[in-house]
């Protein structure tokens, strides 16, 4: 299995690592700010829980990459490429849990007809409604995720990194809940006690949708499903084209493709190995992405054993 990445991809990976460290730093500051301004608003509490949860994809990305870089060992003869798939599952679960928490919490507080109290507080000798402090904290919490998420998306595409992509979705969830929180607090300020919960509830559907999509891809990846498109449950076109090319070359063979982290592995069964193969030449998609095609293995046809085998 070849796993050497081209120089541009290596550079992208380093950028992704830097972005993730920045994410952790910014999110930590947001967690502190929101924690201080939280009060008893439901949307604020959920925004906080969700900010904490949103650290998960960044952390597992860094962790997975650390392992992925290691070579195979005696105990892990295939190397650690699938740690990326595992990390993806963890990130997808985090995103789904966040959507679920948001949905359940907001439904419960609507159901209980909870009238949220947001009292005034004293700040620098001034009496000020805590709602304005919350709005300011939430406004701060919206900015970094928008920027970080947007920077991560193109990287995730080039790196074919589902963890990074899920992390970008997490950032989207972050800024959306931030905005929902602002709308909810101002709604409460206007005397609509349900504004907070309704805003959080609406956002939760979008987050849950992203989470469940990610979960489906992660499960497909771990269950040796055919390669999926980044961030969608659809089959990947480049992989489908590769399969068609292999079927053309080895008619009658059984051709199977699967993802292993960011790489594609292909197995051609029913054909004896033809000797050496140029994987890059076989890649039907854009040449700068041919690094993804990491392995082509052959399984000889089954039948009565020839004297050599056994």
């Amino acid at each position, binding site marked *: 299995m070849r796993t050497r990445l081209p120089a541009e991809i290596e550079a992208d990976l380093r950028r992704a690592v830097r972005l993730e460290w920045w994410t952790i730093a910014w999110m930590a500051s947001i967690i502190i700010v929101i924690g201080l301004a939280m009060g008893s608003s439901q949307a604020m509490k959920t925004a906080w829980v969700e900010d904490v949860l949103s650290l998960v994809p960044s952390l597992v990305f860094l962790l997975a990459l650390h392992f992925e870089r290691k070579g195979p060992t005696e105990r892990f003869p295939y190397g650690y490429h699938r740690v990326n798939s595992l990390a993806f599952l963890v990130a997808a679960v985090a995103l789904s849990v966040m959507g679920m928490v948001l949905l359940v919490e907001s439904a419960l507080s609507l159901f209980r007809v909870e009238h949220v109290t947001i*009292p005034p507080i004293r700040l620098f000798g001034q009496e000020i409604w805590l709602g304005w402090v919350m709005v300011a904290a939430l406004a701060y919490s919206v900015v970094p995720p928008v920027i970080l998420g947007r920077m991560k998306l193109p990287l995730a595409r080039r790196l074919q990194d589902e963890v990074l992509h899920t992390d970008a979705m997490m950032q989207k969830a972050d800024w959306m809940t931030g905005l929902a929180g*602002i*709308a909810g607090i*101002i709604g*409460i*300020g206007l005397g609509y006690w349900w504004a907070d919960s309704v805003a959080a509830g609406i956002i939760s559907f979008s987050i849950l949708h992203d989470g469940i999509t990610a979960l489906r891809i992660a499960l497909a990846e771990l269950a040796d499903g055919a390669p999926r498109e980044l961030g969608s449950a659809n089959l990947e076109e480049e992989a489908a084209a590769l399969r068609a090319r292999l079927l053309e070359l080895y008619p009658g063979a059984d051709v199977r493709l699967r993802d292993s982290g960011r790489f594609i592995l292909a197995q051609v069964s029913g054909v004896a190995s033809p000797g050496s193969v140029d994987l890059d030449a076989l890649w039907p998609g854009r040449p700068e992405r041919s690094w993804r095609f990491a392995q082509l293995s052959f399984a000889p046809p089954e039948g009565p054993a020839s004297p050599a085998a056994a």
Partner: protein
Amino acid sequence: MKPALLLAAALMIGGCDSIPADPDGTLARVRGEGRFRVGMIASAGRPMVADGTAALLKGLSGATGARAAVEHGAAESLLTRLEDGDLDLVVGEFAEKSPWAAKVTLSEPIGRRGPTILAAAARNGENAWIALVHREARAVASGGR
């Protein structure tokens, strides 16, 4: 969501006085009717810390132009009626970590005796009224010492 934010921005520019508002319009009703309903928790056998209470009710009257209609009763029944919106304010002694603090909104203490505090409770979510009660309670607390 964008229209909501625009609306919010317009309201912020338009006037901060109307925010926060009460979902059930307590403050507006108090001003309109010229009366707010106060439940005074009867503390068995012990005299209330009366000064703080009187000062708070006077402060609230001054701020709203309404007068206090006071009745006395047991804590549980008064607080339950406050939750239901049959009272606007309950004044009395509470434990410092009262379990009622989640169901109603307690003001800053306007008096203290050992582990109990004298405080005013308002109905949850009536944020304009709560803001006023907090402000007046704070004035009493800082002026009374």
